[in-house]
């Protein structure tokens, strides 16, 4: 595993200082308090577009910078640290991945530049039941003269109320799962926001007799293979955000251990807490290695991209689960109050855990990939 390149380090530092100065967690809190229906701050989104982060996975001839998944992951990590809400991940990471892998030249030309300039917000619509299960797709795409007719329902669609175009997983007449680009304003498509603990934007979709053209099918790669690879890459991306959430939780906790006094001493001098901090730190370092390896494997076109994605999601999940619980536990009573930020991190942690498969599902997947 390689260290970050100089370019990556610089970008990471820039993202870090921008997020901390422009979008500290207080911004998210203000946004949550003013707008409990989820969503994101349009000003922050404009700034993100302006900084070119939406183009990191887009080849240069479509207006992007093509800096790769690790670089994108470093940005997600920084945004995760302050719980920044934006459609960056859904659109410019997952959406762009789907188009890059599955789009033909025409589709790339028409979608990628719009992802980069933020005029289109894409998102994957995959889950149909409350538990993520990549094999469970009941939504159908029936071939018509003009293209396809989609019928079905989706739930837990990230940025579902803000998205302009859904990348819908549906079963074709041949029984294969394929991805279809479905504009949010299509006739027959309705959406409803979900109010979740992390106060972000999620939606349920209903597709009844939604007609799309031939160009809606992402057909440059075999459907279910494309679908699987998009999900693998999405999981690796989520892992980087989870890393950021967990690392900031660790820093808050470490800071508290160094400043909070009880029985006349800072509580970090109590050996039981000092050792717990040591274990959490170790777990954080392991999570970082796995998360960075997950996105690096994509950049390198590694054979074990799928397995590394499973490890990255499972191991950051393990760290973030423990860390978010200890964040509350070590802060004690103050950690239980809504006024303090710990709860925001805990809630976000559990939503990320369930997104695109939880730890258990990724462990199972990993064993299957290794053949046991």
């Amino acid at each position, binding site marked *: 595993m390689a260290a970050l390149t100089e370019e990556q380090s610089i970008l990471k530092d820039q993202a870090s200082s921008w997020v901390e100065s422009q979008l500290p967690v207080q911004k998210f809190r203000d946004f949550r308090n003013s707008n409990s229906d989820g969503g994101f701050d349009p000003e922050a989104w404009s700034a993100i577009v302006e900084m070119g982060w939406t183009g990191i996975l887009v080849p240069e001839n479509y207006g992007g910078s093509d800096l790769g998944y690790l670089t994108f992951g470093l940005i997600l990590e920084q945004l995760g640290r302050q719980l920044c809400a934006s459609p960056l991940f859904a659109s410019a990471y997952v959406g762009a991945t789907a188009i890059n892998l599955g789009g033909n030249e025409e589709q790339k030309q028409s979608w990628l530049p719009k992802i980069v300039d933020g005029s289109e917000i894409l998102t994957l619509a995959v889950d149909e039941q409350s538990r993520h299960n990549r094999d469970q797709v009941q939504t159908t795409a029936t071939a018509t003269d003009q293209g396809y007719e989609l019928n079905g329902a989706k739930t837990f669609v990230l940025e579902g109320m803000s998205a302009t175009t859904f990348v819908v997983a549906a079963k074709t007449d041949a029984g294969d799962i394929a991805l279809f680009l479905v504009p949010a304003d299509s006739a027959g498509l309705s959406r409803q926001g979900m109010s979740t603990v992390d106060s972000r934007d999620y939606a349920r979709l209903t597709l009844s007799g939604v007609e799309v053209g031939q160009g809606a099918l992402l057909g440059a790669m075999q459907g279910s293979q494309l679908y699987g690879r998009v999900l693998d890459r999405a999981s690796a991306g989520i892992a980087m955000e989870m890393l950021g959430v967990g690392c900031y939780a660790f820093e808050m906790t470490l800071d508290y251990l160094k400043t909070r006094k009880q029985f*006349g001493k800072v509580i970090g001098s109590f050996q039981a807490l000092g050792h717990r901090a040591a274990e959490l730190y170790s777990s954080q370092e392991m999570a970082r290695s796995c998360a960075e390896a997950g996105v690096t494997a994509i950049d390198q076109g590694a054979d074990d991209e799928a397995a590394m994605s499973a490890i990255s999601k499972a191991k950051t999940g393990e760290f973030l689960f423990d860390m978010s619980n200890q964040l509350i536990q070590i802060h*004690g009573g103050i950690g239980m109050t*809504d*006024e303090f930020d710990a709860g925001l991190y805990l809630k976000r942690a559990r939503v990320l855990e369930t997104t695109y498969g939880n730890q258990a599902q990724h462990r*199972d997947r990993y064993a299957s990939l290794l053949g046991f």
Partner: protein
Amino acid sequence: MENASELDVFRRDVKAWVQNNFPSSLAGQDLAGLAGGESGARANDEVKTAMETWRQRLAEKGWGAPTWPVEYGGAGLSHPEANVIGEEIFQAGAYNPIPHMTGMGVTMVGPTLLEYGTDEQKAQHLKGIASGEIRWCLGLSEPNAGSDLASLSTKAEDKGDYFALNGQKIWTSGAHISQWCGALVRTDSNAGKRDGISFVMLPMQQEGVETRPIRLISGVSPFCETYFSDARAEKGDLLGNLNDGWSVVKRLLQHERQSQTGGQGASMLDSEPLHVKAQRFVGSDEDGALVDKDLRQRLVRNYMDATAHRLTAERITAEAAGRVEVSAAASILKNSNTRVAQTKAELALEIMGSQGIGWSGDDFAEEELGIVREWLAGKAMSIYGGSYEVQNNIISKNVLGLPETTQKG
């Protein structure tokens, strides 16, 4: 142990009484919620009336605090008998609201009053608790004190026939809806950290007391910041000796631990066993085993831990032969109860997937939302009433006899 057959007869009687007296209109209601402050206030009148009837019937039997003497509103029963009452009420799908309605009254204040109170104090306070009419809060913790209770700085100044209290308490459970408060206050600033402390009781409805509810991560506000500005506590309301409040509060906290060692409380999490919930959300394979084997394995561990906790609580009760003694085992049981309950809540969330992250709205079943709130609220179990770490300190020192460390975390 009691003679089993006598206890069986008693159980039959209790069962019949509950069947005849529990108002049918309360069946299936969120009774724990109703007995608490917030959702109780939102209930409709019919339910409120039925709840009041049910409370009165229980109070008449002395079953709000069944082990207390009859003269103080109890039923003078043994602990095994009291357990039978609890079990039968639970079995019937009913709920005994009195402990909940009195805040800290039945579980902590009452038992401590019985031990430390004068005859006048007992006569004045206990009946109102046993009947569920008077709610008590406790003013113990202070900002920047946390687990280090003894570093408190709220002062009680001797004004002749009363004390004038000044200072701030925090985590005062239900202070905004309580009639009385038991407060730990400093009565001698020159004495050692644990020496100059006294325990006084005072009415909450007075000018010198102000409460500010604290909003928690679960969205509710069961605790307050409580401010005393020349709040008045009568001299006669001093519990225990002057400057001996530390021994009173130690006993109080033992009762608290005891009350947190797990029992039968109606909760969203209990309404459907986890493995049934998992069968519903996750599905089973042709052998009837859950499809998610990783989850299944952790579910079994939680079930076994829950059984181990229950068996240990029963064993310790049996070994103590029903004596009132607050066992050193309380710390073990509090921690195991906490671990089982918190893990159970996490498992429930995991099982529900994206239905387990709902905050509000029709997209989520009421039960799903309830479990999420309970998961969040349950994070406090390892913090309040002596944190997980404090219990481990107690076990290490008091139970195992390991030398005191200079560091208590």
